[in-house]
């Protein structure tokens, strides 16, 4: 099909046959420290096929560290990371990719100057021919890229244009389409809507649902609860490296989610401060409204 796997990862992956009772991906008490800085501690999470798990938290909450561990850029220092029920430590992004874990980063992991089709197949290029005369199967790659993108809803006549010329939302979609095409079982999306306008965000959220409907387990990282709630099935809240809550959709409302994230206590304090300073009635009213939910 698509991904080229090297012999080593084949051997490793042979051990990971899916056991029916196990979840796709589980984290139990996972932690990571950089020197003396504890970036993540005691995090539990479960990812299942066809479900979206949202990871929420403000800046510095440890979201990046979490994804980097799952995507193979870093290794966890404590806790268990299970894929199909077997413990695993991903040594590199290549190993993670071969295991079916694909990440779409905030900076997208696309090379702006390169054409869309080259980006699409980067690291997994299709070749024809034998031995030293192996060459890229350019036409095939261009065709597949066009097809996959159109399946996701982007119709580009020219996949030769540098990907840097696409809008932010389009680039996100190409990155998602790439991950889906290469047989990702787990798709991690790192703040895909952070830099996008409202309409573009809507487009991306729709693609998240499409990926979910194709049977992928999606991990959606964001600091915006209003984006997370409509698409999420479960929600993990992180704050300063620790989990402050792990809920399924049935257990929480969007307002509770927002309050938990924004920190209800902090908002109340802010309202009090503004009251003391005086003369900021509008801001005051807003803060009070936020604090009281």
């Amino acid at each position: 099909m698509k991904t080229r796997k090297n012999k080593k990862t084949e051997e490793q992956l042979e051990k990971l046959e899916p056991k029916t009772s196990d979840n796709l991906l589980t984290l139990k008490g996972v932690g990571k420290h950089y020197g003396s800085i504890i970036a993540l501690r005691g995090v539990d999470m479960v990812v299942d096929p066809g479900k979206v798990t949202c990871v929420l938290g403000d800046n510095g909450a440890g979201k990046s560290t979490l994804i980097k561990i799952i995507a193979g850029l870093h290794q966890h220092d404590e806790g268990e990371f299970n894929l199909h029920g077997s413990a695993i430590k991903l040594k590199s992004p290549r190993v993670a990719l071969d295991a079916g874990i694909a990440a779409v980063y905030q900076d997208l992991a696309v090379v702006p100057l390169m054409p869309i089709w080259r980006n699409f197949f980067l690291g997994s290029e299709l070749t024809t021919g034998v031995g030293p005369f192996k060459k890229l199967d350019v036409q095939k790659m261009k065709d597949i890229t066009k097809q996959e993108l159109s399946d996701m809803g982007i119709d580009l006549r020219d996949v030769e244009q540098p990907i840097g010329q696409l809008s932010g939302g389009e680039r996100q979609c190409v990155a998602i389409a790439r991950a889906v095409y290469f047989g990702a079982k787990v798709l991690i999306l790192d703040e895909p809507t952070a830099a996008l306008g409202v309409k573009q965000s809507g487009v991306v959220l729709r693609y998240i649902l499409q990926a979910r409907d194709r049977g992928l387990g999606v991990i959606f990282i964001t600091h915006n609860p209003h984006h997370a709630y409509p698409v999420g099935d479960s929600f993990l809240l992180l704050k300063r490296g620790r989990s402050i809550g792990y809920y399924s959709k049935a257990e929480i409302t969007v307002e509770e989610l927002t309050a938990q994230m924004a920190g209800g206590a902090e908002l109340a304090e802010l309202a009090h401060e503004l009251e003391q300073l005086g003369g900021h009635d509008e801001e005051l009213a807003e803060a009070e409204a936020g604090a009281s939910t």
Partner: protein
Amino acid sequence: MSSITASPSHKKSTAGPDERVGKKSTLSILLGRPEIGALVGAVALFIFFAIVAPVFLSPASLATVLYGASTIGIMAVGVSLLMIGGEFDLSTGVAVISSALSASLISWYFGLNVWVGVVLALIVSLLIGFINGIILIKTKLPSFIVTLASFLMLTGLNLGLTRAIGGSVSSPSIADMEGFQSAKAVFASSVNVAGIDVKVTVFIWLAMVIIASWILLRTKIGNWIFAIGGDEKAARAVGVPVVRTKIGLFMAVGFCGWVLGMHNLFAFDAVQSGEGIGNEFLYIIAAVIGGCLLTGGYGSAIGGAIGAFIFGMANKGIVYAEWNPDWFKFFLGLMLLLATVVNIVVKKRAESSK
């Protein structure tokens, strides 16, 4: 693809064909290529010298210009690939001489068939590239610094070892040794083309450009080179073997240095151990004029070749035009600047017209 097929409702697209992406004409596709600015610059320079110095157009002169271009061009091939991959190598100028000296001194000292020296010099050149790459990876210093250090070390080694082994600053003559004549035929002979003697380096240069272009545009490795130069983090994140590719690029530069070093050795026999210094910038200039971005991720081997050709034309053209030699260097700099400006102007036009 997963076994779950996407249901038809998910195949709906948001709109019809994306109306923002217009159809590109062949001309604008052509104008978008990285070499186009360099090509226009080269043509302009050619016409200029053809007018100013009629002797420029004679076949013998063109052969001379091509020779002058080829000795820069052979290195520009490797340096362009490396630059596209996002790195610099400042040790290239002296590495050429190191290669030539290795072949010469080893053959001479041990009384070996010169071809043995040639093979050992290849190993030395590849090793220099490998070491440059490894130090870069391990220290994570900018390649500018790493190769500046190796430039200084190689300069010292060239001088010191030549004196220590050969007794003077110039390597001893090996013209009377076995294998010299055959090696000379391969690396430093001339080929008669329609009555004109064209140096073999021109053909070697063209062959290298073709191979390098093929690697860059039609192989996996080429894709990786563009990616690493354009965004190394992104490349690593999708599983491109960054370390291996970078080291490979430095070794490719080493290979080019070997080719040119062998030409130097068999053309001039005695190698001056202090030579080579300053050429590294000419190779980089050729690559940049040819459209390679200094920041990496964009460019072509053909561009580097055109850049070398521009340099050859400017260099020799000034002589054919018989301008005042005191102003030589000034004219050369001016020609190069103009060629680069034309390059940029054409590129901007191409981008805005898309």
